[in-house]
């Protein structure tokens, strides 16, 4: 359904990516790049309305005496 896409990273950028990936403890450059892309796309696109996070927020709010 979603397909796949290849991206080529080379030269200085590749060196930087490798350094960051090593420093942050990722198991591979691929894992690091995918994770960074996930983070950036989540900032741009609407977040999924996770029921878990909504529940968490409501749980916190229910600690207020005004609410049951």
């Amino acid at each position, binding site marked *: 359904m979603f397909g796949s896409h290849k991206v080529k990273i080379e030269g200085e950028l590749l060196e930087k990516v490798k350094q960051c990936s090593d420093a942050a403890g990722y198991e591979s450059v691929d894992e690091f790049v995918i994770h960074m892309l996930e*983070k950036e796309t989540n900032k741009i696109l609407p977040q999924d309305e996770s029921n878990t996070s*909504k529940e968490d927020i409501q749980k916190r709010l229910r600690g207020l*005496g*005004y609410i049951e």
Partner: protein
Amino acid sequence: MIILGVDGLDPDLLTKFMAEGKMPNFAKLAEQGSFRRLTTSIPPQSPVAWSNLITGMNAGGHGIFDFIHRDPKNFQLYFSTSKVEGPAHSFSIGKWVIPLGSGSAEQLRHGKAFWEILDENHVHNFVYRIPANFPPIDAKGKTLSGMGTPDLRGTYGTFTFYTDDPTAAVGAVEGGEVVQVDVKNNRVTTNLIGPDNTFLRNAPPSTEPFTVDVDPLESVARIDLQGQKFVLKEGEWSGWLPVEFQLMPFIGNVKGICRFYLKQAHPRFQLYVSPINIDPSNPALPISTPSSYSRDLAKEIGEYHTQGIAEDTKALTAGVLDDKEFLQQSHTVLAEHRRAFDAEFPKFHEGLFFFYFSSLDLNAHMLWRLTDPQSPSYDAAAAAQYGGALEEFYEQIDQVLGEVMARLDSDTTLLVLSDHGFAPYRHSFNLNTWLWKNGYITRKEGFTGDATQPFADVDWSRTRAYGIGLNGLYLNVRSREREGIVEVGAPADALLREIQQKLLDIRDPKDGSPVITRVDLASEVYQGPYARSGPDALVGYNRGYRSGWQTILGQFPPDVMEENTNPWSGDHCMDYTKVPGVLLSNRKIPAQTPALTDIAPTILSEFGIAKTKEMMGQSVFQTR
């Protein structure tokens, strides 16, 4: 200048107690100076009211409309005055998630606080636990955050109750958790529940083990928490115990403090543990300016509640603490505030000294039923035993005032004020249920999802209005709400007026009383850049009535009206004209109808500082 900010100090109760000779210092102050009713905020909720006082603006200026706000794009609900978030970036190693950077706490109130302006003008100031100041804004003076400060778990107070009673309702309760334990060979082995461990995938709650050895014969128990061993008798509270939650070995830990109460050793084991408070000696989140002040205060007076609303009303509501035990805990809170007052007040020699007390508000919420025979939760036996409890808190505040007046000189202006008064809360009105039954909300038929989620089954394509928070009425506006259908302009105005009139026409079927006595339109009562950011209308309930418990978070109880049988039996989230606060001073106050928005200009005027152009009011000492 000295200001005592006494949350919820009610003018009618004050008048009564003064007349009965129970508050001689207030009586003296009123006689020698002035006593006025203080117009509260629209709506009369503490975060709104204190924000009015702090900024000199109403909600249109400071952007705080209720305890609860919503994001119109996704209906995410959130606490109005502050946001606490984890780090924006992290990476994973196996099961571990490593944050890159620390989390953040953000102050959401807009506008300049009066003490910021005092700082700019080099006026020394001290501000203790003023609400709606978490995280505390940058300040030159000492400030400590109050209402709005979370516990270590990021909630507004989550207690834990450990019991071996097999009939206990185990799991999450409102404001707490009930944990089933076993007493094996007279020992309980269990865990304290801490903040979510965001170092782990799925962020489960962190835990720290502790053991309780229950004496087989005597009603005592010995508790061992991280090497701290102490004994409690049945009915005894511990002091504050530090606890460290290890989130990631050698790298991440977070410190808090908590108190234990041994409710029962035999025949059932029952142990209450307070919400884990941020440790003032090692704060995990910013709670003071300078950052060292919370620690310095703890060194001077001992550890203290840092949680914004410290009185554990939820534990009383859940029946985990009874009236006596709740009062013990409440008195501890006031005792801490008085120790802080006794430590700080002698140091005051110049500038502004602002000190806040929460006790009258939280105890009026919980104890109103003990002096209100018409309350659905009135209990004659409890009333006979504890009916004087609220009065005792009022008397303690009078004692504090006496300490202030003993030091007052002719150069010092004293104000004693409250953000709102109080009224009985006997009946609930479920606004969202009313909107649904009157065709303003359409709900999907055959919905099988989780109905406890806000507006879980609402068909927004056929919904014109909804309620969120304690007083907020919103239209489902096109281009504002995610699936808005009401056109801005004349259609929205007409719809709002229609709903306004219908709400005002509602009568209690039991006795014909009006349930709602005013509905203020935001466009008419709010001024400032945020006037259109909050509710479209504010529902003002008559005395005795309040928004129901579930409708606040977008749920639909089956009935429009319900009896309020909760011990939380007094409230103020009503028609603002029916719950004014108080303003007393050692000086004559020419203003006959001062308001909260006059206080910031008053403070500035005392120090020869002009109010800002955004401030709506004027000094209460100015002849009008």
